[in-house]
């Protein structure tokens, strides 16, 4: 170390002489700047433009328009869609995760972990195509079901509608729930189960008094995540329905594609702003719920 030549010493001495806060600031700068430019500015733009008319004046009329008529319907539909695809896949995911967890096969669990990771990340359009191939009017499953006279299309099912989108969303929502809830299930200690049994509780009573209450915050948290995921998704809904379904993200897409009443171009920003509000609330709730969950399950 003492071989560091005279050439090095002055430079190192210089670096040490810098005031305390400088190095950390410099080191974090690239990240901070990039995030600000890439995330902060666009978001601020959306928020700001939501409150401006085309002429540039500050106005609430965009927000006003967005809470009425077809845009209001878009929000309502999106929220309903997100809620349905949070609750149903949430419960199904919980059941599936439990089924996997109680099997003691490490192989199965690893397989499922990988599969869930993949499925939860499915690109929107890939999902569209495989579902058209499955449940389209001539899809594989449709054909199989029609052999037993249960062709869903005959019962009013339409893949290219709101209903279809909900069914397709389950494909990534269920794995997402499995991913989120599995650690919580792992946190359910066998000693609780045994203690309750030892004290005279039946299986039903165990779940009623201990299992479900302890899991509830995590399940709720998972469902909140699913809500956010279902609310914000665009690609699948857009490609599946060719943009015909009234959902908030789709409507933003329509605005960007120019399919909007002239004079209302800034509607898109107002819709975006509305989405930001909904999602922020969701994530705040998620944070609160998670804190409760981690207190009990650690």
């Amino acid at each position, binding site marked *: 170390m003492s071989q560091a030549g005279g050439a090095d010493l002055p430079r190192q001495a210089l670096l040490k002489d810098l005031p305390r806060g400088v190095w950390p600031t410099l080191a974090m700068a690239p990240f901070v700047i990039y995030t600000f430019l890439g995330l902060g500015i666009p978001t601020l733009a959306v928020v700001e433009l939501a409150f401006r008319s085309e002429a540039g004046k500050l106005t609430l009329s965009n927000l006003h328009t967005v809470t009425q008529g077809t845009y209001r319907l878009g929000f309502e539909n999106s929220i309903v869609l997100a809620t349905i695809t949070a609750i149903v896949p949430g419960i199904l995911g919980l059941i599936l995760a439990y089924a996997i967890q109680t099997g003691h096969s490490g192989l199965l669990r690893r397989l499922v972990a990988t599969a869930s990771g993949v499925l939860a990340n499915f690109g929107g359009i890939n999902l569209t195509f495989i579902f058209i191939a499955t449940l389209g009017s001539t899809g594989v499953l449709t054909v199989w079901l029609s052999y037993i006279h249960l062709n869903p299309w005959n019962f009013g099912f339409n893949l290219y509608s709101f209903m279809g989108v909900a069914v397709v969303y389950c494909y990534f929502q269920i794995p997402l729930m499995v991913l989120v809830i599995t650690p919580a299930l792992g946190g359910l200690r066998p*000693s609780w189960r045994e203690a309750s049994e030892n004290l005279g509780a039946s299986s039903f009573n165990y779940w009623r008094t201990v299992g479900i209450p302890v899991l509830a915050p995590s399940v709720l948290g998972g469902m909140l995540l699913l809500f956010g995921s279902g609310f914000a998704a665009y690609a699948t809904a857009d490609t599946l329905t060719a943009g015909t379904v009234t959902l908030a993200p789709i409507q933003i897409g329509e605005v960007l594609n120019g399919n909007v009443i002239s004079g209302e171009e800034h509607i898109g920003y107002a819709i975006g702003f509305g989405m930001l509000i909904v999602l922020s609330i969701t994530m705040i709730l998620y944070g609160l719920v998670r804190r409760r969950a981690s207190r*009990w399950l650690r």
Partner: protein
Amino acid sequence: MTTTQNTSPIVDSFLQDLPVAGAQVELDRLVRVFGQTRALDGLSLTIERGEFVALLGPSGCGKTTALRVLAGFERLDSGRVVVNGQDLARVSAQHRDMGMVFQSYSLFPNMNALNNVAYGLRMRKQGSRQRRKKAGELLELVGLADQASKYPHQMSGGQQQRVALARALAIEPRVLLLDEPLSALDAKVRAELRDQIRSLQQRLAITTVFVTHDQEEALSMADRVCVMKSGRIEQTATPATLYSRPATAFVAEFVGVSSRVPVERAGDEVLVFGQQCPVRGGAGATWDSIDVLLRPEDVAIETNPDGKGFVTHRSFLGATTRLVVQVGEIAVRVDVRSEVAADIELGNHVSLRVISRDVLVAPRVGNDLSAAS
């Protein structure tokens, strides 16, 4: 910190109301096989009413399995569990009326201490007010009345285990089962809880089975101790008997400290440090080669420049000092009173003398697999 030696009127009246809780437990040739291992290999044991029995042994010896079989969490491959004359084969864990305290983290996290303790009563459909009263009394019994509304994550490990104990006692079980309840706690808390559990058990006279790998715990708490190894019981005896008259080499080496010294025969007796000693129980007549197991207090030491041993270590233990003496290739541990030890220094040559009236022998290590502990 209050101990349970308090004589609060609530507690005393509670204790008066308690029926005699002890049940007689009989474990009859229990066998439990997991894959290739025989976790229980024909284990038999009878526990009297109100007795405190410790199952002691190294990990994997089957002590926890035995306890869990008794509780109903493990099924048996063969054998019977009989409590007060009733075979429990068809009785599920839920209905066995035994209270169990687990090693750790068994309190229900979503309930406070009071509700945890009242849980068993709730399952027995007792009324709310009655439950809370009883649970309160039990918390007082374990000295945690002021923690009633705390949640498990707000309590220390020691406190949690005391609540767990109260919870198990709330249902007035006929058998109390404890699965290494102190292992996860630190030393000081462990010692305090040890006393509390023991005195509580004595007052309530509940038949108790206590599993541990810590021989100090077992010896200080139990009426009788079963030393287990590989699914079988090596010896069941009072702590004193176990210590002074171990039946096998395994017990001698597991309980207390002993030094293993290879010796030669001298007729019916053996030659230890040039001294002829009778063999305990007259064993070993048929063995090829013999080792002797000596406790540190069985050996006397004196400095002797011609002695064959020399001192290599000394550990100050308070009233006594433990010296390690190297004799040839063997290390012998010897306890002497600390004032005497002051005159003996490291490197001193010493001679050793057996002062117990007989010695415990075992087949020489290497000839017999089971002699290795």
